[in-house]
Each structure stands twice: as C-alpha cells, then as structure tokens.
C-alpha cells in the first residue's frame, strides 16, 4: 500500500481534505496501547480495599473514554467536521451523561419505605397493606360509605 502524503484539493475536484495514512495508523497505535493499559491494570491486585476498587473503576472508565474520544475525533473525522456535525456528536454523548441524573431516583429510594426495591421482589408480588380510605386529612368530606375491599390475607 503506497503511503500517500496529504493531498489538498485532490484531482477529483472536490474540496475535502484527504488525511495521510499515518494519522489513522497513529490513532490505532494510541487505541491499542490504551487497551493494553486497561487490561494490564485489571491484573493489579485490588483486594477488599474500597478506595483501590473505586480508583480502578475510575481508571478503566477514563481510559475507555479516551479511547472513545480518539475514535470519534480521528476515525470518525469529527475533529475535521463542521461545527454542526460536532454538535450532533457532542449532544448524543451529552444526553448519555444527563440520563444518569435519573440515578437520583434509585439512590433516594432508601429514604422512603420501598418494599419492592429493598427486597428485590416486584412490588405487585408482595402482600398488600390494609386499605384505609381516609388516611390523614382529606379536603372533601366522605359523602358516602366507602366499602373496604376484601384484602388478600383477610387483614
């Protein structure tokens, strides 16, 4: 395969810039080295230390992000693209980050009784509590007698 230098305004008459092969090979080397780095790091002994485990997580994810950025910028050509393209690419991954805000739901579940979440059994398979139609203050008076439905275990 001939190693071409960069050809500007190449003979086909269009105005796109053709990158040298070396750029792609260099990006591949970077990616491969990062991959070998993560694999070797995973062999480091972590044991039961929470800090070491956390640090390993962060390291592995950071290297994964670096690899992703290399692929996106160089292989996918986003570095050389128009601002509009860059924005589309950025927004996709920005969304991904924002989605993790919904983690707050799960992390705050321990603040309130959530039998389905804590026990791991789906909530609709758990026995239901007593049915009380007028819990606490109600805005409207109870105009007619609301019959209590029979509960599953007769409570």
């Amino acid at each position, binding site marked *: 395969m001939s190693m071409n230098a960069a050809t500007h305004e190449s003979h086909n008459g269009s105005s796109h810039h*053709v990158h040298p092969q070396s750029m792609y090979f260099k990006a591949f080397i970077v*990616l*491969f080295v990062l991959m070998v780095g993560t694999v070797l790091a995973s062999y480091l002994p972590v044991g039961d230390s929470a800090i070491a485990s956390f640090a390993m997580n962060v390291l592995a994810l950071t290297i994964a992000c670096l690899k992703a950025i290399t692929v996106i910028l160089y292989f996918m050509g986003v570095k050389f693209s128009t601002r509009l393209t860059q924005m589309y690419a950025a927004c996709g991954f920005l969304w991904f980050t924002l989605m993790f805000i919904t983690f707050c739901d799960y992390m705050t579940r321990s603040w309130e009784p959530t039998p389905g979440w804590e026990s791991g059994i789906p909530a609709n398979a758990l026995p239901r509590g007593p049915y009380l139609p007028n819990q606490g203050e109600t805005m409207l008076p109870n105009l007619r007698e609301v019959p209590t439905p029979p509960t599953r275990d007769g409570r």
Partner: protein
Amino acid sequence: MASIPAQGHGNVKPAHVHTQFENEEQQNESYIVGMWSFLVTEVMFFGALFFSYALYRWKYQADFYVLHEMLDRVMGAVNTSVLLFSSLAVALAVRGAQLKKKKTVLAWLTVTQLCAVTFLVIKYFEWTKKFKAGIVLGPSFVWPNPTYLEEIPALAKVPEGHAQLFYSLYFGMTGLHAIHVIVGIIVIGVLMIMWWKNNRLVTEDYIPTEMVGLYWHFVDLVWIFLFPLFYLIPR
C-alpha cells in the same frame, strides 16, 4: 466526469451533487449530519442498557464483582483488538474512497469483514462455553453452577436472582452488539459489491462509504465501553 453548471453562479457542481444543494460541501455535511442523527439514536438505544447495567451493578456490587470473574478477559481483549483493527481498516477504506482508489477500498473493506467475522467467531466460542456450563437465557439457568463453582468458590454466595440479572444484561448487551455487527457485515458487503461493480453511487461520491464507516466506528465504540465494564472493571 459530467458536471452540471449551477445556475447563476458560474462555478460547476459535480454530477453527484443534487439540485437542492449549493455545492458538494453542503451535501456532504447534510449526509454526515443525517448519519450522526441515526448514531445518536443508537447511543440512546445502547445508553439505556448501559444505565440498566450501571444501576444493578451499583445495587448488587459485591455479587456483580464475583460474577464478572466468570467472563474470559483474554477473549475479550482479543475481541477488542480485532474490532479496533477493523475500525482502522474501515477508516483507510474511506480514505481510499476519497482518493477514488477502488482496489484500496475493496482491500480494506475485505480486512474489515474478516475482522468482523473473527469477532463473531470469538463471541460464539465465549457464549457456547457459557451455554455448555448451563448459563443460558431462560428457565434452564443452572445455579449454583458446578462448572464455575470450581474456579470461583465465591460464587456460592451469589443468589440466583442476581446471577440471572447479570447474565440477562450480559447476553442482552453483547447480543445486541453482535446483531449490530451482523448488520454491519451485511451493509459493508453490499457496499463492497457496489464498489466491485463500479456503481456510480459509491465511486463518484465518497460519502456513502464514509457513512458506512461511521456506523462501523460506532459499533466499535460500543464495544470499547462494553469491554471494560463487563470484563475488566471489578478487579
């Protein structure tokens, strides 16, 4: 090559530029932005699964750490290298398309296809190893698992529900990724046939090749994240 003069501008648009575009640059940009829109939807597709994985990994951390050891790191690393190389191959094929060098394009696309097939073969071996041990999707899930209990005694403490959760995520995500690889193989195959037959759609304009390349890089990107999350992190 035949060219149509753009009205009232005096400069000439190449034949493959459609009438609604001012010039080739604008057409290229719209095609690339269109492809990126699709890739953003794919980010959402996989993103939700990654979130699911993150959630249950956070919730059942200790169990997931033990379950992760059942996966083969070496096979995962080989798969990653294969996909990284296939990304390089497709990028060089796109470069060949920019230079209108048919042989270069076909050569590098062949390399990409071979890498893709290698990836699927390795994944086949990984999965069948699990299936033979009784780690399957469905009611015949064998837990506690005698095959793996020998290697990893800590598995005895992992409840079946957590193991099933882990494996539904593992098979779900790697399976979905494998489906994307298969689709990629088909699409690259079609592209190769078009190049081989000198179809003007791909020989005059490098953008279709570039769009297929973008899809393939995305497939590689997903694997770049899947690999550390499932195979590497807990250690």
